[in-house]
């Protein structure tokens, strides 16, 4: 009874602490008005952070970029001129950046082991000539055209996606444009849109785009005028918290290279930020920010159309026999990352759970001998061809009744994996 009381007390303390901290945090960021959040009326998803934004500057204070999000230390971005910067310090709404080099942004890419002759026929023939598009924030809208910056479930962004899809179709690309709503606009949006993204990936698209818009008030910052017609610029966003980051970054660089060649000024830059944005699902997934909420939707639609023109070339889908979608170094960096993470994580767990290097090694040996045999049946344990009875250790393990359990230290290891 005493223990139970203790558990209850600690639990209620925990709950109280969580509640108190959320209340405090909420009060701090929005002014004191926590109560409406508990009523459904308070859950109107229209609230947005458009208008507040971060300005990225270099050490001399020159403005490099602006975006409607707090930027974090170690975020990186590749500016329109292909210089790569890293955020080294945050001062309020200012992010101080250091130039860390110039990126090789070329469409061909450093050709890696797979020769073009390997990739080209596949692209021309059986490859899925399909691009999938969805919108995590289906409410995002453009004030000059849509009248407001947010229309839950029916945002102007959907129409921008339509134009992007339509242009791709006119270029002979199959497009699947998903307009599922992922309201309300909160942190769970990505959980909801993840389902849409996963369903889209089941169709086997060559690329997956999540189309958004930015929330920087300065519309000129996102506006480009060519021959008297204005269009909005586009930012490519790569999430750096997943195993596909390098592959997706290379993909973004190829799109930028192609767009820079055909429509200079269209790409605002590539931002490599904290987050994952469902890009862990595919190594060919990108988040696009097409203009900002103060651009007109027509500008954004024109920008989207221009971007669509270069996609077939980048994917090697289209006429006139564009360079095939060759592999990139980033793909292999991703592979190395996954392998490394697996080995390190596995080793750490093994050492931790078995209590020392020696035991970990012993358990590893145990794993290879017993675990797989258990899974695959007894065939593997028998010497090939002989078909005779298993010998030695194997028999001990298989035929538990022969040997009392105490005399089988190895089975403890097996049990270890399966204990409650």
């Amino acid at each position: 009874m005493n223990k139970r009381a203790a558990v209850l007390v600690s639990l209620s303390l925990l709950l109280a602490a969580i509640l108190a901290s959320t209340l405090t945090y909420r009060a701090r960021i929005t002014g004191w008005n926590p109560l409406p959040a508990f009523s459904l009326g308070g859950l109107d998803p229209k609230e947005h952070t458009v208008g507040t934004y971060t300005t990225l500057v270099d050490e001399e204070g020159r403005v490099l970029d602006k975006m409607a999000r707090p930027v974090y230390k170690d975020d990186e971005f590749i500016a329109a001129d292909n210089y790569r910067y890293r955020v080294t310090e945050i001062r309020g709404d200012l992010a101080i950046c250091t130039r860390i080099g110039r990126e090789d942004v070329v469409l061909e890419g450093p050709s890696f082991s797979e020769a073009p002759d390997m990739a080209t026929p596949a692209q021309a023939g059986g490859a899925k000539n399909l691009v999938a598009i969805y919108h995590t924030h289906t409410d995002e809208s453009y004030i000059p055209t849509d009248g407001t910056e947010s229309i839950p479930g029916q945002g102007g962004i959907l129409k921008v996606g339509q134009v992007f899809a339509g242009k791709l179709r006119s270029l002979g690309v199959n497009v699947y444009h998903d307009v599922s709503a992922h309201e309300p606009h909160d942190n769970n949006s990505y959980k909801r849109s993840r389902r849409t993204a996963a369903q889209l990936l089941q169709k086997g698209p060559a690329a997956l785009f999540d189309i958004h818009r930015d929330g920087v008030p300065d519309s000129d910052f996102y506006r480009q005028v060519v021959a008297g017609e204005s269009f909005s610029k586009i930012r490519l966003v790569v999430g750096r918290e997943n195993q596909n980051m390098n592959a997706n970054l290379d993909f973004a660089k190829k799109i930028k290279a192609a767009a820079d060649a055909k429509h200079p000024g269209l790409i605002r830059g590539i931002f490599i930020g904290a987050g994952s944005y469902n890009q862990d699902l595919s190594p060919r997934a990108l988040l696009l920010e097409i203009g900002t909420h103060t651009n007109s939707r027509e500008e954004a639609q024109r920008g989207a159309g221009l971007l669509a023109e270069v996609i077939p070339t980048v994917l090697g889908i289209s006429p006139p026999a564009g360079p095939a979608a060759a592999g990139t170094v980033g793909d292999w960096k991703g592979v190395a990352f996954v392998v490394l993470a697996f080995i390190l994580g596995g080793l750490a767990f093994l050492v931790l759970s078995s209590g020392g290097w020696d035991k970990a090694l012993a358990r590893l040996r145990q794993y290879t001998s017993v675990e797989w045999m258990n899974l695959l049946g007894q065939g593997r344990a028998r010497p090939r061809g002989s078909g005779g009875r298993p010998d030695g250790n194997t028999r001990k393990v298989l035929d538990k009744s022969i040997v009392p359990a105490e005399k089988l230290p190895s089975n403890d290891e097996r049990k270890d994996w399966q204990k409650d």
Partner: protein
Amino acid sequence: MAGYPLGVIVLVVLFLLIYFGLAQRVLDRLYLSDRAALALLAAIIVGSFINIPLSRGRIVSSINVGGGLIPLGLAVYVLYRCGTRKEIGRTLLAAAVTAGVIFALNSWLMRGREPWDFAMNVLDPLYYYPLVAGVTAYLVGRSRRAAFVAAILGVLLLDLIDYLMLAASGIRGTVAVGGAGILDVSLLSGIVAVLLAEFIGEGRERLQGGPEVEGRPRSLLEGLRLKTAKKVLPEEKRSDRDE
């Protein structure tokens, strides 16, 4: 996959292999044998491609077999196999707390904000779910199985909250329970929560120099390979494995 460069294929296949491998190891711990875990994993993979529509119109809702139904069934099965009523109570409490905390974090605090807009942005929201579920379940239930059930039910509860909110607000929305199949947040949370509970549990036991045995019921002690436990229990009652 044809047409993708080799690097991409290797990357995807490798990732899936490791993920499936971990998933199998986790299922293995839920009153399931190795083979049953493997079969279930196969069912989840196949089920990922099957969506059962529930409603159309303004709120489009569906449940995915691999990402929603099977994990839900598994959670219910684990609950059913729970030893005591107290354990069931704790686990359900952990599920409710998990749903509450994630909802508070992601919806209430973050409403109208980008996911990267959180003051303590270290992680993508995707990773909050399993972390919260794992830690909550560990604090409340102190077991891997509680962690699994709390994570699965907690995240599924969020879908229910979503549905109610959408129904009340009158806006267009989608509730695709477990829609991303094996890669859905619900199953992912269940798997990571179990692994997390394991890391915390093993780490803590290591730090304190072995599991606590004082005052624990025999049924729990018999799973341990402690000298004392062996002496206490009669020979024939000790099972070699707990299924």
